[in-house]
């Protein structure tokens, strides 16, 4: 079986030792101790394990390390730059868009990717894009509010 020896995560090359077919989620969490990425269902249904692979949101539970090797992987730990929260993170706090917050990492990474391609989204567009991410606590309306707020913060910052 082919082995994967290196992953590029949050801008850093990490040495790993994994079978190519192992899940990216397991390797991130167990070998790199990046536990901000969560297991929720193991079948790509809940979005708790969302990471960015070359900038696109991917379910790390059903993405193999083989498929992610050689690509740029971003996890929740890599979203805040130089100790400063990203506007999406800030907006989630300000909107109180969490309860238990177990879904929050996946929500933030999905929203982060969404806002790259939708600078001024309407609420309905946000809700549609976030359909694949489960929040069992039911903070969905606040998540939509937070992403809208983040888009305005980012627009302000671009000025």
């Amino acid at each position, binding site marked *: 079986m082919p082995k994967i020896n290196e992953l590029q995560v949050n801008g850093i090359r990490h040495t790993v030792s994994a079978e190519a077919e192992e899940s990216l989620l397991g390797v991130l969490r167990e070998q790199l101790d990046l536990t901000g990425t969560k297991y929720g269902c193991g079948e790509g249904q809940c979005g708790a394990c969302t990471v960015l692979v070359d900038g696109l949101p991917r379910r790390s539970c059903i993405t193999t390390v083989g498929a992610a090797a050689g690509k740029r992987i971003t996890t929740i730990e890599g979203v805040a730059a130089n100790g400063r*929260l990203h506007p999406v993170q800030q907006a989630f706090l300000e909107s109180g868009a*969490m309860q238990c917050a177990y879904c929050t990492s996946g929500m933030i990474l999905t929203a982060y990717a969404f806002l790259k391609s939708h600078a001024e989204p309407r609420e309905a567009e946000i809700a549609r894009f976030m359909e694949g991410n489960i929040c069992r606590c039911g903070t969905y309306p606040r998540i939509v509010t937070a992403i809208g707020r983040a888009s305005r913060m980012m627009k302000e910052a671009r000025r």
Partner: protein
Amino acid sequence: MNNKSVVPELYEPERYEFYAGPFYRFELLKPDRRAFFKALGCGIVVVCVLRDARAFQESGRRRLGEQLPQEISAWLHIGENGRVTAYTGKVEVGQNIRTSLTQAVAEELRVAPGRIELVMGDTERTPFDMGTFGSRTTPTMSPQLRRASAAGRDLLIGLAAQAWKVDRAELVAADGKITDPKTRRAIEYGQLLKGRQLAQTIPAEDPLEPATKWTVMGKRLAKVDGEEFVTGKHRYASDITLPGMLYGKIVRPASFGATLASFDAQAAQAMPGVTVVRDGDFAGVTAPGSYLAARAAAAVKAEWKSTPQPSSKDLFEYLKQNPVEAKGWEGHSRHETGSVEKGLAAADHRLQQTYTVAYIAHAPLEPRAAVAEWKDGKLTVWTGTQRPFAVRSELAEAFHIPEDHVRVQMPDTGSAYGGKHTGEAAVEAARLARAAGKPVKVVWTREEEFTWAYFRPAGVIEITSGVRNDGTVTAWEFHNYNSGAAAIGTPYDIANQRTEFHPVKSPLRQGSYRALAATANHFARESHMDELAAAVKMDPLAFRFKNLKDARLRAVFEAAADKFGWGKAKSEAGHGFGLGGGVEKGGYVATCAEVGVEGGKVRIARVVTAFDCGAVVNPDGLRNQIEGANIMGIGGALFEAMEFENGRILNGRFSRYRVPRQSDVPKIDVVLVDRRDLPSAGAGETPIVGLAPAVGNAIFNATGKRLRSLPMAPNGLKV
């Protein structure tokens, strides 16, 4: 359920998981008992001694009948550095009590919330607590921490008065300082405490700041450690790692109650770094990584002896035909006033209907998880549980060791909703760790969580009623089979009533779920009230008011109806309006819903919930709970149901068990009825109970079709 004859008043009948026997019975030997005690550093320690017997059972004492070295219910430490640490056995599962309890301490101690740390749910560091359930944190723990804080504040004022030789009545505590307004002298708490070790005991009756004077409570405070979560730094139980830790995987039985007939672990054992454990009907493996652990568990050849079991298809018949004796619950389960027969005779219309609710799963997004470590015969476990002290007992029992050899710590957890009252993963991890000689982590898969946790009880509810043409309900007979007794009584003023809860031999492992059976009982009652209103051609709201004296419940109905525009708003074609409400756990709720039924699809367009839980502690946190309860409630109301057959769950994954998503979310308006003149009740549960009946009644209003089974439209609705 075992045969306990004495049932604590705080426990409700359907908390089956509290009384269930151990999950596993291991064949390990018992070592010796050892006592413990420990000291605290410089500063003030406030120990809260409780005199209230009811609170005694809940906090400050271990299991009933068992002695604690001290009967302490809460404590607080104010350090030389001015940092404040409050200790509570309550736990955080997303209800944001870490934040609301911080507000409570800040309010009475007059320090900024940012200087307060809460140590929660650690059996070695926090006073005993029965568990985080029943919406008890706000009505019981918050006042306890406030009393402890007020006592600490009084002591600090006394110290400053002594140092400055002034009358203590002249001094003011504010912003972490004692100030003398006359001389404008001020000293920080930490300064007053340098090198001192002071203990303060306080009575339970200490006066607290009335809600009308609150400055920190009663206002929004964002999740105190929110940044830990948005950055992914927070370690849930499933994120804890220890040096040398292994990953465990349980070899699950083929069906519920199956026993191991044959076991061949040769192939698994041959894998590098794999340990196989078998103890009775428990079997599991450990490996250096979860990928290998899963492969090893799959390589174990286990044959299971199964027994035939009921299926979800025949569920409601089964529930009616399999009663069990209500040992210990008799007083709780039956209630009668007047004569139902006379009431029925006096009625112009009589109605008899049956309502059903399915088994549903909590499906907390973080499944059960635990890390266990043995050191010198002592066991330390990190796990996501609502009852760390009960899990400690579970572990002590499973491993035949004294409770003081077990420490359970509960990191803030990825939700629970009443579904994490037990310690299965903790026991499993500890058993595997014991065999492997290294720390072990066990994280349940989604399928395991859907299968081996416990479910919200299914039930059958039968109502017989009578109503006069003027809208007076004259008779009310209510029977609940299995789903539970919570909120089984009607808040309406009906002269002739009989209510009874009938326990049943449940085909599935069942237990607490957010609001317990209040959801089922409210669905049945509020649907039935709607049917009675229709029978006498009255507006559903006017019909309720005709039979309702309770001023607080009337007030929330009025508030919700007003915001919703009840009686004024015009519905679109295919849309209907409905409402439902009630009282439970000190909370008064009324919910109005607008539902559209188009092309067989049911869509909730709008929900208004008015809620009164006394004085509001954190309005934004409360709104968050009410919105979340409504959204979670959509699943149970419309589409969630466990399917099972012969001891197997058939739909135990998110691709087969639909939970609410963004597209299910209606516009939600929350009206808070803030009663500053009344003590605060808990709010995490009760707001869920109004949604299902409001939606069902709105569907009836839209289509003329009456739906009496939860979920109401698992596959849409044919009209």
